[in-house]
């Protein structure tokens, strides 16, 4: 009504987040999923030459698809932040140090640290097109790839998507001003779907980078990370952390946020995390109080496990969850092959195996 305008200054402004409903109705499919392998901080997955490659910290491990002990492929100086493969078998490996290395294939040994004059600062996702085109999602121009929380809390919007033609050698900034792009999916028409984590949405970027990013899915109940093409059409989207009203409030509270960032260790911030419950120094919200020995699954938390199945128009149709009382949180990446979806739970230190018929 008209008087709302007059009364609004006197009213509290409720902080709201999209509800976990509809396609996001909670279940325990991730929590009860089979463990494919234990791995410390799995950050990226890739099915490559009949093996599942897992980036676990600075180690690149290769697991046989039928299960079993992994073969260590390579150890880097800094943690791996993303993986991609070329059709000729060459691997593109992004490192937290801010570079992309090519291992094997015709570009073996190439190291990418700069594209079109922009230093690769936080490579969070990679995608390849054709024989030699590499897309790099650069999360931020300020923070490194494992420091998303700092970028989020600083209201960062300095991410970019870079395109590098390894054959021709020319590079281009396809889009910039993005709030932590964390996932890439190349469409058949060569446009790109980018998950913009800190703005909780997916945007479409045309391959030539001439038009502005168009939102294709907004108001997600979590922070989107990687996208993977799903076998039956559409895509899988990993949501690495849940949205939380208290976090949203802290994002609007400058003084508190600045003091928190300056004086408190990052793992203890009121900020989304890949896992929680590791230390009693972590923040607690009222709904998370353990009562009669039970932690409520609906409790507001800093971490969550969530994968969404999107249809070919990027509308969510179903989802898999590990809720506040679970451990398989912080899903960063997925890979699907032969009716099985592998999911990397960074917070749960495990690679999960889900029959996709069940999703």
């Amino acid at each position, binding site marked *: 009504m008209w008087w709302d305008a007059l009364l609004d200054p006197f*009213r*509290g*402004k*409720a*902080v709201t987040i999209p509800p976990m409903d509809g396609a996001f109705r909670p279940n325990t499919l991730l929590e009860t999923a089979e463990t494919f392998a234990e791995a410390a901080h799995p950050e990226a997955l890739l099915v490559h030459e009949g093996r599942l490659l897992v980036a676990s910290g600075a180690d690149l491990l290769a697991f046989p698809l039928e299960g079993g002990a992994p073969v260590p492929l390579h150890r880097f100086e800094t943690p791996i932040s993303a993986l991609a493969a070329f059709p000729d078998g060459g691997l593109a490996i992004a490192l937290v140090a801010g570079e992309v290395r090519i291992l094997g294939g015709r570009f073996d040994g190439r190291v990418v640290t700069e594209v079109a004059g922009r230093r690769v600062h936080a490579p969070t996702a990679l995608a390849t097109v054709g024989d030699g085109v590499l897309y790099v999602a650069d999360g931020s121009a300020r923070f490194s790839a494992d420091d998303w929380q700092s970028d989020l809390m600083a209201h960062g919007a300095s991410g970019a998507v870079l395109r590098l033609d390894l054959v021709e050698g020319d590079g281009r900034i396809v889009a910039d001003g993005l709030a932590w792009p964390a996932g890439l999916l190349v469409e058949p028409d060569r446009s790109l779907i980018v998950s913009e984590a800190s703005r909780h949405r997916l945007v479409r970027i045309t391959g030539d980078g001439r038009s502005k990013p168009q939102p294709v899915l907004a108001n997600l109940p979590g922070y989107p990370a990687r996208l993977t093409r799903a076998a039956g059409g559409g895509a899988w989207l990993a949501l690495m952390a849940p949205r*939380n*009203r*208290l976090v949203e*409030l802290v994002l609007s*509270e*400058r*003084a*508190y946020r*600045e*003091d*928190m960032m300056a*004086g*408190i*260790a990052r793992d*203890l*911030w*009121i900020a989304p995390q890949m896992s929680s419950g590791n*230390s*009693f*120094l*972590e*923040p*607690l*919200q*009222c*709904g*998370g*109080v*353990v*009562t*009669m*020995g039970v932690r409520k699954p609906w*409790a*507001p938390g800093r971490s969550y496990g969530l994968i969404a199945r999107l249809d070919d128009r990027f509308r969510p149709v179903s989802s898999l969850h590990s809720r506040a009382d679970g451990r398989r949180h912080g899903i960063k990446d997925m890979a699907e092959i032969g009716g099985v979806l592998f999911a990397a739970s960074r917070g749960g230190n495990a690679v999960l195996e889900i029959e996709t018929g069940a999703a």
Partner: protein
Amino acid sequence: MRLPESLSRLIYNAIPSHLVGEILTKRWADNLVPFLLLAAVIAIFGTAINGFFAPASLLDTTRQLGEFLIVVIGLTIVMLGGGIDLSVGSIYALSVFMSVVGIYLWELPASLALVLAIATGGLCGAFNGVLIGYLRLRAFLTTLVTLIMGRSLYDILIIAWGRELQMSPVLNDRFDYIGTGSLGGLPVSILIAGVFALLAHVLLSRSRLGWHISAVGGSRRSAYNAGIPVRRTVFLTYVISGLSAGIAGFLFAARLSGAGPGTGSGLELAALTAAVVGGNSLGGGRGSIAKGLMGAVAVLTMTNGLIRLGYGTGSNQLVLGFMLAFAVVLDIRWAKNRHKVLAEVYVAPVHHRMSGDESALPNGGGAYALNDRLSDASPIALGEVEGPEDVILDEDGNLYAGTRHGEIVRWFAPDYRRSEVFAHIGGFPLGLAMDHDGAIKTCVGAMGLYSIAKDGEVTRLSTETNRSWASVVDDARLRDPNDCDIGPDGRIWFTDSTTRYDAHDWVLDSIESRPTGRLLVYDPKTGKTKTVRDGLRYANGVCLAHDGRSILIAESWACSVHRYWIDGPKAGSMECLIADMPGYPDNINRASDGCYWMAWLGVRTPTFDLSLRHPGFRKRMTRRLPGDDWLFPNINTGGVIKFDETGRIVGTLGDLTGKSHPMVTSMREHKGELFVGGILNNRIGRFRIPGADSEWTSWKSYWSGKTPPVAEGDPSQAARRRDSAETALPEGRA
């Protein structure tokens, strides 16, 4: 714009913003809007009209006010009972007529004329009352009908008898005095109205009928279920209203010495407006005489003022109509949104800077470093007990604990598999202490201090303390009595944790961090409770020191333990024993080796500590987020800390897995074992203490070697007293 911390500290700590919420919880807060309206009306007309405040003018106004006020009071009582009376105007007119007839035609004395007027009013009111109360017709339609009927009857009568009345030669001095005389500078009518208002106020606020009327108006069905005679109560409200109109009519007749065709017309609108503008709810249940008084003064000032400013009856009625509409809207909006406003403004955080950088991390290396030893505790009553805040054992080893169902449950030694409800109190029994005779003293959350004799009989000891003079909320009430202990002289020292929140909302007090906790003492000799210390940030555990000369008090949100001297040269003073702990202390109890056990209900987190320095952040948090999303101190991890007489930390027990004992609120040592309780837990832990004295019990440590005060006429106790006469008696007990 960033506020400097010192400025924010000044703003949030110096301005008593919590009073806004406290005032809103008061029933009289409803009076603020009508009061402001009254002040505004008087200010406007007082300035617009020359000579408004002149004595003659005021005298005339108050004379009218007397009659009007009485009618408004009657209507207020009807509205409070959930009804409405539109017929007051006609009843008033009929009473005027009967008074005039009584005086001028029948030549009755003034007193009989008054009786006649009152009887007329009462009869008309009873007619309404029977129709609405007993036959349960709709109040609005019924009184509309009686309004029309009464008005028609009056018109018939005044035409038939008007001439004779005009011609009457009778002079009645007393009647004229009531109408025009003054007593001590005040018109007689306003004095009568004043007495009437006082009586009505006493009736409504102090008498059984008054409470019945409020109850019926608030909720007819509940009132019926509570056994209140609803129909009779409704009937009586209309009778009272009729009587009021009768008295008012008599006063009018006395003032004007006659009756005319227009007498009392439009009175129902003015009276209704006055009652509603004053803040009496049309829905019933909310209202008071004071509200009626304010409304009456405001409406009368306005109507008279408008007439004196030259506006006619039409515009007068129009303004009244607008006022009524506005008041009705306000009434409905206020009744609907009051609790929302209250919920938004009640939490009023203060700035508080925590200090101390000791860590409780297991690998932190400090004295407080928690461990996982408590996860080995074997559970008692797992899944059966809910919320054992405190636990205690008797000399036979039986275990007692309060539960959130308001019961004290006893588990039988030695295996604690069998249990019984030892006593049902209600509330939430929290701290326990055992007296020399085995009676259990307990602080019951939301209720007070209670005693349970060995046979399970419950006695109320104390539910109130002295009220502090500046308090808005009634701080005499014990809101969150938390823990108690018994001094050597039998006085019971206990804490009331906060005056701001009820027992079940205790964690909200941490968000506010306002120091309102108190240390109280109950003296069984006088039966009185006294506040000995206030200004504590959630006063919690209480424990009598081993030498019985001081008590230890846990101040939870300040993470401190204090020693309050009850004996010796420092009696009455308090000193800090342990400060700046990394956890929030709860109950404290004696240990067998001369040390003390202290429960930690939670541990500090850096984010919460930081939020204490940002009161604005917490304020906005409570306004903008639902309660489940509020930042809490970490009460999912607790522990047991042992400290010695000097406050040095001797050892810790923790359960960092959080599976058995996430939060610990109490522990009691008994024969080499530690029994552990938690207010949100579903078990009592039983933990063998390595190297502890397997004969030591808490009761013995308090009472053995001491002579209990002897109950007169109890030969066995008297004998025991003689036996122990040789042994040294404690000081001052012989």
